[in-house]
């Protein structure tokens, strides 16, 4: 039976490529696939593009390719990634330049057309600017829009492979599709073979978060896992869509039923109906079986027909967060931090620094879990106050810093660690919508 081996590289923009290198050199893989995009990433890339119209892709794609391409050429490994972000053509340009400089012979395909920014009026006329969760209509003229992208599936990626691409760079294609596309291409799966598509997407879902499937964020016995030398997952998939998940020999991390099951359900809301562009996956049917050291058999996922819409995200500017963080020492650290927050609130009122929302918490005590933490104040050695306000203007952050700074001489005793006085960061509103597939597909292009 025909089999292919697929390795995972990064799981987000900012992840390391290093744990994927042993998969190429010693893992006998045919494909290396990586995910680079998240909701937040799209906003970061949009800010880049505002600075320079040539940008808008994940900027580490250049250095990554410099490292990977000589190895991938030697081992005949093809690459798929959605690192193109909101400028896949720009990303292709960067990669083509590197290929030329390294004097390699590789074909780069680019997939684009997921960008819906120029279609907003058309979407509005079709009454499609409706938040799919709240069902409220989205008044796009009220906001500064930062991006609008549909989540594409595996189809254009498979098309790129059929055209002979060695490297496929796309914009907002879903994470799991990077991994499923090589399976669909190599095994010739049909687009209505729902069970196999579901199996492929399940394997992709297990792989798409890199280290998180192989011991990263593991809530079991994490102490026993070598995270220093973690190796990213490898899937050996057969034409029926069954897989063995493993990793390169000699790497750290752990592949087991216990590490993989945590990833299986990660960020899937209804596990009986996990809606992806190409198929609706019943991921609850999946079975995970330990079959050897760092070897887990994955099988059993089933699928249902795909829906007739793509999900798209519209990102818009939604004011700023201004943040102050500073610490107090024992004795009575928590009490002092609470007293400091009262002073700040009084002085914001005095100076008419208006805010739409406020969030106060105590780092070292309850900043993650708030009122769930109701133990009597343990005699904490130190506590940091974190106060965040939602404001309309970036300059309101400067106003907050003028209110925070005087606490250095005119507040409770033993303050240290002034980590933030009023640093302002832009907040991003997100509106998820559904768009009929034909409206998107008519503009999706695959170019070599």
């Amino acid at each position, binding site marked *: 039976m025909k089999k292919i081996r697929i390795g995972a590289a990064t799981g987000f923009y900012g992840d390391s490529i290093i744990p994927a290198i042993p998969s190429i050199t010693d893992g006998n893989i045919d494909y290396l696939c990586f995910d680079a995009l998240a*909701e*937040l990433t799209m*906003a970061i890339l949009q800010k880049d593009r505002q600075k320079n119209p040539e940008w808008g892709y994940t900027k580490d794609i250049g250095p990554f390719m410099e490292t990977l391409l000589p190895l991938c050429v030697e081992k005949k490994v093809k690459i798929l990634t959605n690192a193109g972000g909101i400028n896949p053509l720009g990303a292709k340009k960067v990669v083509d330049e590197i290929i030329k400089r390294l004097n390699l012979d590789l074909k780069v395909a680019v997939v684009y057309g997921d960008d819906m920014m120029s279609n907003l009026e058309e979407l509005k006329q079709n009454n499609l600017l409706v938040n799919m*969760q709240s069902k409220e209509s989205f008044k796009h003229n009220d906001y500064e829009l930062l991006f609008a992208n549909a989540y594409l599936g595996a189809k254009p990626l498979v098309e790129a492979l059929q055209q002979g691409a060695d490297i496929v760079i796309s914009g907002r294609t879903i994470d799991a599709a990077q991994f499923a596309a090589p399976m669909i291409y190599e095994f010739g799966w049909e687009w209505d073979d729902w069970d196999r598509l579901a199996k492929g997407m399940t394997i992709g879902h297990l792989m798409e978060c890199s280290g998180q499937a192989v011991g990263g*964020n*593991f*809530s*079991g016995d994490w102490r026993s896992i070598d995270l220093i030398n973690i190796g990213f997952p490898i899937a050996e998939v057969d034409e029926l869509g069954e897989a063995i998940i493993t990793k390169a020999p000699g790497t750290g991390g752990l592949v087991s*039923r*216990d590490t993989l*099951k*945590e*990833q*299986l*359900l*990660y*960020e*899937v*809301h*209804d*596990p*009986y109906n996990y809606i992806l562009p190409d198929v609706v996956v*019943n991921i*609850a*049917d*999946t*079975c*995970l*079986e330990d079959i050897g050291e760092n070897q887990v058999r994955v099988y*059993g996922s089933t699928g249902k027909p795909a829906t007739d819409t793509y999900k798209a995200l519209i*990102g818009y500017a*939604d004011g700023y*967060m201004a943040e102050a963080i500073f610490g107090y020492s024992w004795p009575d650290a928590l009490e002092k931090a609470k007293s400091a927050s009262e002073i700040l609130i009084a002085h914001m009122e005095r100076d008419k620094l208006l805010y739409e*929302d*406020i*969030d106060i*918490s105590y*780092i070292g005590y309850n*900043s*993650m*879990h*708030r*009122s*769930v933490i109701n133990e009597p104040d343990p005699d904490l050695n130190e506590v940091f106050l*974190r106060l*965040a*306000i*939602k404001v309309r203007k970036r300059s309101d952050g400067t106003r907050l810093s003028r209110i925070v700074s005087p606490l250095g001489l005119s507040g409770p005793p033993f303050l240290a660690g002034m980590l933030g006085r009023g640093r302002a960061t832009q*907040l*991003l*509103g*997100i509106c*998820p919508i559904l768009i009929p597939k034909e409206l998107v597909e008519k503009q999706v292009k695959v170019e070599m």
Partner: protein
Amino acid sequence: MKVLLKELVQVRCGDKGNDSDVNIFASNERIYAYLKEELTEEKVKAFYGDLVKGDVIRYEVPNVLAFKFHLKEALGGGGSSSLRIDGLGKTMGAVILRMEVDIDEGLLKNDKKDSLYIGQSNSIS
């Protein structure tokens, strides 16, 4: 005997917009059966208190002895617009580990790891 949930389960959590997604994995079938009665939607929602503003939906995933909790409106607006220090809900799974449950000591003593368990996934209640 009373134990913290931390002694019985694995947890992995994530986000989608303003919703949090908390998955709880029992270490064997007997504990899974016990938690099925114990970890009700109502009890979990009450435990999260004002961290979770919306509904809590539970799914059972017997193949991996898991309960998936979808916590709606749980992240103060969601990762990109939340004022919370954990706007992505990366630690929402840790909250529930503090829950104290009253469990038969016999269930803990015989704590063999689960073998592969083929459940009937269509028997969702």
